[in-house]
């Protein structure tokens, strides 16, 4: 466990002796406690995931008859077929529409706001806009859900995809503006100056200078918001009613309520809804991880 890997020069003998006596909480290379925690945590993460995968290939009767941790003797795709033949493709499309429909405008308008705040942040108006967004970070926005429900009803958008998109955009703004403005601030002033001397408008500077230079940050913010909205549960739960407007997480919960005895089918639905994100994770792990800590690590 926690095999020590010697990347640094070997330590002197007396120190090694001392560590053996008190191997409570050493830090980097010979971090036994960390190593042990690391491998145990790996198990804790892997076992449920392994269990989801193998169980989703079991038949229902097989599930009740066999040991949960033993792979199925006769793997079946029946659960997957059942899920795909139900309304899941529709929920999938709904989720894509809501996610893209919210993320693209949210990132675009957040970028514009962040640009304005960085470039003209001395003005009183932009200063107060900035503090308003910062305040939004500290407030649990879920607490505003009842008036949001009321507003969506009054706009006649209840039980529509657009009704979920609009509040999602608003909830994404504070963090997006914070992260994007941090990155725009890093652009050297001279570049803005030379754009100005070339006679570029602020709008042109935004798209031709700031946007290309901060593209990684934009991708990061888009991924973070995309994941949040894709996995979002509360807004669809409260703002929709008909089954055909459901997004995936809500559909999962409903499916589980409906087929609670057919655990393998439920787990197949869990796996299928997670698959797109897992594929994204394989492809763009770095971007995704930096997306998840966007604004907190920076």
């Amino acid at each position, binding site marked *: 466990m926690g095999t020590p890997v010697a990347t640094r020069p070997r330590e002197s003998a007396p120190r090694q002796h001392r560590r053996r006596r008190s191997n409570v909480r050493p830090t980097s290379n010979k971090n036994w406690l960390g190593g042990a925690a690391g491998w145990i945590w*790996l198990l804790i993460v892997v076992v449920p995931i392994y269990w989801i995968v193998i169980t989703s290939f079991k038949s229902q009767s097989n599930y009740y008859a066999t040991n949960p941790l033993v792979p199925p003797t006769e793997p079946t795709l029946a659960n997957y077929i059942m899920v795909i033949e139900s309304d899941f493709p529709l929920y999938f499309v709904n989720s894509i529409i809501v996610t893209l429909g919210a993320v693209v405008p949210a990132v675009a308008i957040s970028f514009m706001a962040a640009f304005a705040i960085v470039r003209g942040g001395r003005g009183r108006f932009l200063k107060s806009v900035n503090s308003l967004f910062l305040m939004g970070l500290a407030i*649990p926005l879920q607490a505003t859900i009842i008036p949001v429900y009321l507003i969506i009803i009054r706009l006649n958008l209840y039980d529509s995809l657009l009704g979920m998109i609009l509040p999602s955009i*608003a909830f994404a703004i504070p963090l997006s503006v914070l992260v994007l403005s941090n990155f725009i601030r890093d652009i050297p002033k001279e570049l803005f100056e030379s754009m100005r001397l070339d006679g570029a408008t602020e709008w042109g500077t935004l798209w031709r200078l700031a946007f290309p230079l901060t593209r990684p940050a934009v991708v990061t913010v888009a991924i973070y918001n995309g994941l949040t909205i894709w996995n979002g*549960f509360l807004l669809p739960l409260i703002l929709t009613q008909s089954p055909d407007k459901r997004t995936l997480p809500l559909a999962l919960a409903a499916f589980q309520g409906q087929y609670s005895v057919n655990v393998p089918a439920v787990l197949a639905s869990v796996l299928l809804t*997670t698959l797109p994100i897992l594929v994204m*994770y394989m492809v763009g792990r770095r971007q995704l991880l930096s997306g998840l800590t966007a604004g907190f690590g920076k």
Partner: protein
Amino acid sequence: MTSATAPRKKGRGGSLGWLALPALAFFLAFAVVPLVGVLWLSFTTWDGLGEIRLTGLDSWHAVLDNPGLMHSLWVTFLVMALSWAFQTPLSILLGVFLAGRQRYRAVLAVVYFIPLLLSSAAIAITYKALLDPNFGLGAGLGIDILIQDWLGEPTLALGVVIFVVSWQFIPFHSLLYQGGVRQIPRSMYEAAELDGAGRVRMFWSITLPQLKYTIITSSTLMVVGSLTFFDLIYVMTAGGPGDATRVLALDMYKRGFQANLMGPASVIAVILVVVGLLLAMLLRRIGGGNNSDSQLEGA
């Protein structure tokens, strides 16, 4: 898009305000107005469909005179405090471990972060089945202590919620700590090494103090975030057994959207906002000011 098609504005400073308007409009409409609206709704009676009537302090009385509120506050506090106490040491430990540059640690990290990608609904559904006393993991491993009615016993159910929350979020926080540890200058450890400090000393006198801002950031996110655990608990226990896991956010939902009492639900929402703001301010005070840039300075 090019500047040719863009609205013409003078390229001098000062005329930039309009760029912030779309974001401001959205934020006002769906965050600021609702924030004020929730306070207003807390003085009304509304069933979610019919007309909204101003009824003064009725809703506040209904909530404050009922022991349900204290119970929800207590459960929320328990979830917050216990999940913080469970996640923080483990996240620091794993973060320090992951900060090592060894190849196998990078591989472990790839696996660790998978729970971050799953929706709370998916996680809740999985654990619900996994913890089944007859067909779940306990029965599979044949370990008696794991064969419990996990979600049927009040204390166990609360423990399960805290564990599952940690399962979901420890990866995120260890990622923060990994970043924090990597920003600590090597030279500090080298200097301490010359002074003959051991690993344990180094952890307590260099790593931990240098992680101060990361700890504050991570704790703020954990604490304020724990106010909004809704989906996980809703799907996994629905607040049960009894009201054992009925946290504030769930209490708000149940009063509002299941019992159709939007007034009292709005009262709970106001309490949620106030508690969230107070906690954020408290943690900021402890941290001694703005931490978002100090963290960079530390590098």
